[in-house]
């Protein structure tokens, strides 16, 4: 909004004669300020503007930071239409210049106060005379204390322009963008615009008040801040001219206009300054400027040194446009605007799987400028992928590799070609050192195979696996501790166990809303009917939880669930301890906190009788691992005596079905366990041997090892696998 001051007439207006609604409201509310605001007079301005001249008595400290006085005369200008905020000017001849939150005007004085950051359209709903007067009084009081500009508010630019320039300090040329904007570029095709870069000494925070529209005025403004801009500019122009001659550049070079980017450190306090940029487009060609600054070019290949002429007469006709500079987007800027602090912001991450979840998770963090990434995926983008993939550039990315497409998208965005690197490959083909050199490897491949590969083959690096459930309503994150003491596979098996023991999660792996299970599918395959918004919700959660988990050294097992009213419930499970036993080429993991605790308690309850039940768990044939996670305790038709136990069958079939359904076949029948009485050994009795022989036969039939566990005193147990005992 134009904030220039136009002197009013001498015609006084009485309170009764006030016509502008704003004036009436302001005047009628003065009384409520208890003598701290006094109306001195009202004058008529042009176009029926009314000038209310008021004395404010702000509460300012004896020794204010800025020279605001006990009494300040303020002019408020209201206009007949109610389309804009009244303008506010400080009338005192020596009212300080260059204060924060003052407006740019044609003349230095009177100083135009910027009372509100919001525009009138936003403010008009709460605007009243007293609200306005109060805001002016607060402006004076906070300015007096140097508190109007809050510490966490960004410093104000040196000058404000209506147009802008996007600056990448490494670029030498300028190109035009829509809407009066410019952008630095490395290319000099066509008639170039030359980019000159100058750094100045630090100046105080505060906007320059006056409008600057020519080169002379620009020099004067800097002079008022004790900076000789023209002296800084001259060697840059001379250098450009000399280069032009040396390299025999043609006409276009000399016809190029100049854009001046000035780096001005602005003092936040007496010690600390922060760099800010100001941009000025100088509407004169290099050829024209060269003679003013002391070079005349003859025939494009010679030049003559001439006396420089930086007189007002020469400089005033050269128009200058102020361009508000905006740094081009880079990682640092992205981090700043995302509130990313230093830790982990430069960490190396490897992400496996750039599908719907992986790509959106990655782009969330790319927009944070967070980390340095290896992206691994072998698949290409097909039309249906664009429904839920972070790339929406179907023109360019169709049939492109997912990792390559999204890597380019992120790198372009951040103008940083080291930010991410694609690996167009199956993970098993990628050099392990790529992953081992990362701070963490993230698996979003939705493949149990990938997760098991990472858990078993990629050592010495922390890993995390995250995926949606088939219906897309739940999101799971398994995070190893920093030492991978709790590896992904162990966390995965506990996750299945949690589905069994937390009834509200029993539908977690349902594939369709009717609850029907289809076989021959991976449990991390998601149905094709999930809308993008579920991915949005969970990729956001994934990014946030990921950053949080980086700061936590411990292992984690978390499940988020979005309900029908879009509420999200978060469950974090205590990671459980497992006992590890090896025999032959098998490694057996026995869940201590759940399984052993349950069966021990059950044994104690049943003493002096023996008791027992079914072992529930999983077997990884590839890595030769057996996970004993859960149990079905002795059914009611079992026979429990001090020296014998015969496990019954009542309800067992249903329970096993249920377990397989809930865990999508990931947990199942492994074998049998039974207890021995107090003070008895854990060796097989004659009966035990007979039973184990049965189990062996049965196991052969199922293609899995026979497993028997005998439980004794003090949680001691012995496991028998095939013909081995542990």
């Amino acid at each position, binding site marked *: 909004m134009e904030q220039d001051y136009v002197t009013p007439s001498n015609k006084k207006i009485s309170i009764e004669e006030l016509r502008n609604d704003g004036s009436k409201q302001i005047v009628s509310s003065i009384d409520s*300020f*208890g*003598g*701290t605001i006094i109306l001195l007079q009202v004058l008529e301005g042009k176009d029926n503007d009314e000038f209310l001249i008021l004395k404010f*008595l702000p*509460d*300012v*400290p*004896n*020794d*204010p*930071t800025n020279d605001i*006085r*006990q*009494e300040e005369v303020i002019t408020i200008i209201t206009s007949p239409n109610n389309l804009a905020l009244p303008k506010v000017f400080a009338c005192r001849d020596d009212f300080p210049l260059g204060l924060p939150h003052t407006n740019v005007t044609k003349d230095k004085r009177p100083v135009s106060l910027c009372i509100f950051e919001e525009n009138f359209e936003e403010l008009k709903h709460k605007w009243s005379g007293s609200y306005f007067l109060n805001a002016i*009084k607060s402006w004076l009081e906070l300015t*007096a*204390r140097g508190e109007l500009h809050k510490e966490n508010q960004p410093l104000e630019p040196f000058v404000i322009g209506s147009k802008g320039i996007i600056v990448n300090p490494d670029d030498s040329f300028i190109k035009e963008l829509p809407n009066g904007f410019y952008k630095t570029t490395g290319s000099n095709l066509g008639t170039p615009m030359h980019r000159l870069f100058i750094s100045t000494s630090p100046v105080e925070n505060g906007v320059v008040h006056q409008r600057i529209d020519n080169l002379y005025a620009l020099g004067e403004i800097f002079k008022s801040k004790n900076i000789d801009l023209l002296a800084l500019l001259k060697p840059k122009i001379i250098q450009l001219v000399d280069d032009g001659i040396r390299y025999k550049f043609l006409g276009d070079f000399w016809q190029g206009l100049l854009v001046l980017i000035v780096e001005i450190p602005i003092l936040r306090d007496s010690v600390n300054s922060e760099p800010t940029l100001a941009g000025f487009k100088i509407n004169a060609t290099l050829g024209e400027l060269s003679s003013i600054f002391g070079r005349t070019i003859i025939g494009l290949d010679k030049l003559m040194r001439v006396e420089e002429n930086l007189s007002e007469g020469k400089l005033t006709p050269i128009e200058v446009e102020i361009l508000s500079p905006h740094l081009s987007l880079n990682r640092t800027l992205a981090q700043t605007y995302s509130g990313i602090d230093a830790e982990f912001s430069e960490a190396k991450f490897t992400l496996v799987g750039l599908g719907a979840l992986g790509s959106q998770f990655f782009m969330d963090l790319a927009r944070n400028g967070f980390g340095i990434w290896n992206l691994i995926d072998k698949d290409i983008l097909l039309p249906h992928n664009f429904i839920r993939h972070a790339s929406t550039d179907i023109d360019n990315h169709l049939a492109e590799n997912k990792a390559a497409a999204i890597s380019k998208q992120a790198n372009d965005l951040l103008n940083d070609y080291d930010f991410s690197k694609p690996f167009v490959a199956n993970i098993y083909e990628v050099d392990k050192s790529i992953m081992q050199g990362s701070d963490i490897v993230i698996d979003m491949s939705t493949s149990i195979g990938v997760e098991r590969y990472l858990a078993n083959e990629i050592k010495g690096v922390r890993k995390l696996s995250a995926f949606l459930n088939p219906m897309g309503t739940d999101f799971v994150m398994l995070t190893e501790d920093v030492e991978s003491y709790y590896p992904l596979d162990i966390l995965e098996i506990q996750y299945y166990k949690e589905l069994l023991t937390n009834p509200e999660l029993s539908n977690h792996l349902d594939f369709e809303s009717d609850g029907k299970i289809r076989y021959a599918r991976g449990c991390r395959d998601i149905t094709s009917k999930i809308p993008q918004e579920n991915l949005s919700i969970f990729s956001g959660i994934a990014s946030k939880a990921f950053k949080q988990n980086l700061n936590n050294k411990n292992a984690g097992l978390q499940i988020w669930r979005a309900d029908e009213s879009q509420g999200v419930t978060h469950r974090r499970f205590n990671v459980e301890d497992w006992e590890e036993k090896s025999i032959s080429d098998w490694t057996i993991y026995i869940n201590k906190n759940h399984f052993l605790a349950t069966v021990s308690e059950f044994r104690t309850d049943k003493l002096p009788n023996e008791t027992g039940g079914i072992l529930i768990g999983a077997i990884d044939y590839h890595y030769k691992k057996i996970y004993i996670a859960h149990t079905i305790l002795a059914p009611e038709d079992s026979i429990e005596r001090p020296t014998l136990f015969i496990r019954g069958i009542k309800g067992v079939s249903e329970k096993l079905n249920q377990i397989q359904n809930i865990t999508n076949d990931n947990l199942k029948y492994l074998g049998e366990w039974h207890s021995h009485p107090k003070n008895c050994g854990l060796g097989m009795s004659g009966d035990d041997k007979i039973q184990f022989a049965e189990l062996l036969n049965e196991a052969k039939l199922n293609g899995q090892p026979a497993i028997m566990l005998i439980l004794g005193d003090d949680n001691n147990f012995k496991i028998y696998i095939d013909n081995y005992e542990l």
Partner: protein
Amino acid sequence: MSKNIIKYYPVGNGDTSLFKTNNANIITDINIREVKDGIYDVKKDLLKELDEREDRPYTDLFILTHHDNDHCLNFGKHFHTGKISTYDDDDEKIIIDELWVNEYILGDANISDDTDAGIIRKEVRRRRNLYKNNDSTKNERGNRLVLVGYDDNNQFTNVPQHIPGQIVTEINDTALDKFEFFIHAPFKADVIDCNAADDRNMSSIVYQARFYKTNGVDFSCRILHGGDADHYRWARIKEKSEKNNNEDALEWDIFQTPHHCSWTFFNDTPYKDDEKGIDNSEPKQTSIDILNYKKTGAKVVATSKKIVNNSDNPPHYPAKTEYVDVVGESNFKNTHKFYDDFKKPIVFELDEHGATLIKASASAISSGLSKPSRAGRAG
């Protein structure tokens, strides 16, 4: 305790001021008039500002600069005297934990028992006797007494004493938090003078009170407060302070005009009497020098009735002119004028930016700080 404030009440020609420090409330002098139209209810405000102990209002310290009526009016009515055990809850009197007086309260033969000065004298004697007799309760709050200045007539045997040049950092055996006094007067000579001349003003306690910023090093506000001390006392204060390298104790952010903005601070009175050939209209340089110890933005507070351009003294119009010459019109504040303009006492709030004179009344009801007045049909 709440934030640090300095308050000068509108009490006409008279003094009532309150300091609220981090851990002590301090009243200097009182002139509490009967409340009626146009008279500010000082007692009500004091009760609001002061803390309570066992539901009884108390001030950690009361400083009586001297016992002229306009410095102790209605003391007996509003302040508890005697043992704490005799406190009557119906009276809502303010308990004084520690009392500072000068020697002349006991040296002055012209005090009658039924005046406020007489009531104070009786209380001073009571407290004094506890010290004299080394009573075990002498150091309890409500019994404590300090003599400021010299004991010319040996009336204050065993009573603790603060002498000019001393910095006081504790009261009630408790360290003051980021606040202290520098004692300027009365000097021994002042005590002798007042006894000789029967002049209570000469006995005035003069101090510099100073609040520290949170860093504990820089001052947020220095107040020079001089009771009714005249220019002779101030000349001596200046001389002694400068001689002893205590110039910093002369610096001020707030100067409370001695003797209600009378001319006695600047020179002898009468100001001018052409018939008698008297001309004291030239201010003493020593007094101007004192004023020139002002710091940036310093304020003069004239505790008097409204100052008009006539021959009244106090307040004295030419005296105001002298003050205004030093600090500027907008930094000269008169308690009565301020009350007329803003309907409140002069209050300075202190913080890292120093003293801020608060002219605006905060909204109290809508911000939940004050009860709205009673409503309902029965009224």
